[in-house]
């Protein structure tokens, strides 16, 4: 089971001409692999994540998936911010055909939101938002979790619980924080100038990233 990108290009229309964000990305993410993708700001990290989540179509190339991949979990992603965390939880459980109450219970015990679970998401701090997103996706359960800058995942109680929980799942995390990649991943890649380069050794990837 894998998620494959075959010669993926993406460009957006600009005032003059087009902006080419991805220029021929090839990659294979296997089930159970935990991959960190490092990239500086504006190198197309979020674009790549949306392609991997197949919520945006590539301009050219192909994306094939034979495993279940989460939606891109990030700060704003996938929430209705006027609704409470619990309501968002219920909505997502419904569309993924999971038991509603069990999902809410899981998130309640895992996300450490306390009373905020019943408050609108637009009152949340960024840490709370990412905890909510991660907790819901863990409750739904995917072969591969797709994470776009999960700020709360650090050396906190939640961070350690999250790291322990995904030991047996796949993960693709796209970030500009090398420490996250070191903490969570088994493989790393660097996104620069529209291409993605994989490194077998994480230290090598971090060294390349730091020299950019």
């Amino acid at each position: 089971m894998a998620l494959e990108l075959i010669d993926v290009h993406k460009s957006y229309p600009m005032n003059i001409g087009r902006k080419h964000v991805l220029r021929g990305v090839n990659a294979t993410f296997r089930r159970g692999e935990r991959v960190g993708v490092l990239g500086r700001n504006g190198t197309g990290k979020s674009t790549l994540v949306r392609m991997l989540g197949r919520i945006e179509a590539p301009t050219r190339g192909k994306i094939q998936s034979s495993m279940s991949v989460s939606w891109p979990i990030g700060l704003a992603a996938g929430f209705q911010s006027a609704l409470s965390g619990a309501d968002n939880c219920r909505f997502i459980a419904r569309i993924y055909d999971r038991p509603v109450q069990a999902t809410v219970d899981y998130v309640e015990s895992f996300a450490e939101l306390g009373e905020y679970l019943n408050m609108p998401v637009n009152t949340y701090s960024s840490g709370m938002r990412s905890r909510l997103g991660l907790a819901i996706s863990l409750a739904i359960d995917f072969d591969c979790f797709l994470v776009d800058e999960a700020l709360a995942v650090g050396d906190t109680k939640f961070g350690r619980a999250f790291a322990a929980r995904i030991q047996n799942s796949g993960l693709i995390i796209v970030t500009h924080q090398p420490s996250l990649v070191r903490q969570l991943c088994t493989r790393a890649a660097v996104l620069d100038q529209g291409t993605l380069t994989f490194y077998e050794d994480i230290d090598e990837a971090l060294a390349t990233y730091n020299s950019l």
Partner: protein
Amino acid sequence: MSGSGSEPLLIDCARQQVRVIGALIVREMHTRFGRHRFGYLWLFFEPLLLGAMIALIHGFRGGDSVRNTFEFFSIGYIMFFAFRGMINRASSTITANRGLLYHRQVTLPDLFYARHIIEAVACTGVMAIFTIAGIALGGEPPDSIVKMLCALGLMVLLAQGIALVVGALTSEWEALDRLVHAMSYLMLPFSGLFFMVEWLPEWMQAIMLWVPTVHIFELLRDGQFGDRFRATYDLTYVAYWILVPHLLGLVGLRLARQRIGLE
């Protein structure tokens, strides 16, 4: 966008779509009316109030022809209210739900369908209330409830087709929104709400029968009043007005999904 290597079965897709639309309906009710226990009543109260006010204003102007009765305006007005509401809300449908598009099983048409189902249910409920109120006020029971429900169904489908087109167009050209609001308002006198075709001079009848809502209002009145009027309608013509915008709108939304940025 299939989930795995093998193509999913059509029935599974249908089940998924039903699930998504169901979840969207619940979510839409929460955002629109809050989580208070009686918040849902607003759904009925708003058209109820508007329809009743319009009907009373027209009703008290005197005369005793059917035109001045409560049922003629109240039920017609809420149907127009639903039609206009669906089209006017179309331009905000995508922007209001953009965050949900992060879940790949949520499609753009689903966002519209969910809203339209809510609208149709509200309209049916208020129509029932007005029908009962009309009888209580001394009117005759409707000639054919089936015809009335058909008229309502056709009105919702007509509005849905147009709403899909408006949704697709406004996702690319936002300014069109203002034009849509003006048009839907200016359409009121030509919609067929205020007249029966047989009351018009002949030259005007031919013109008015180009307007699809006129046919639907004629069908509604046929159901409401039966033989008391000579109703003129051509449902095949209305069907074209439903099918062609649906096709255009669905194609337009497919293109729009590829073009709208998510963040």
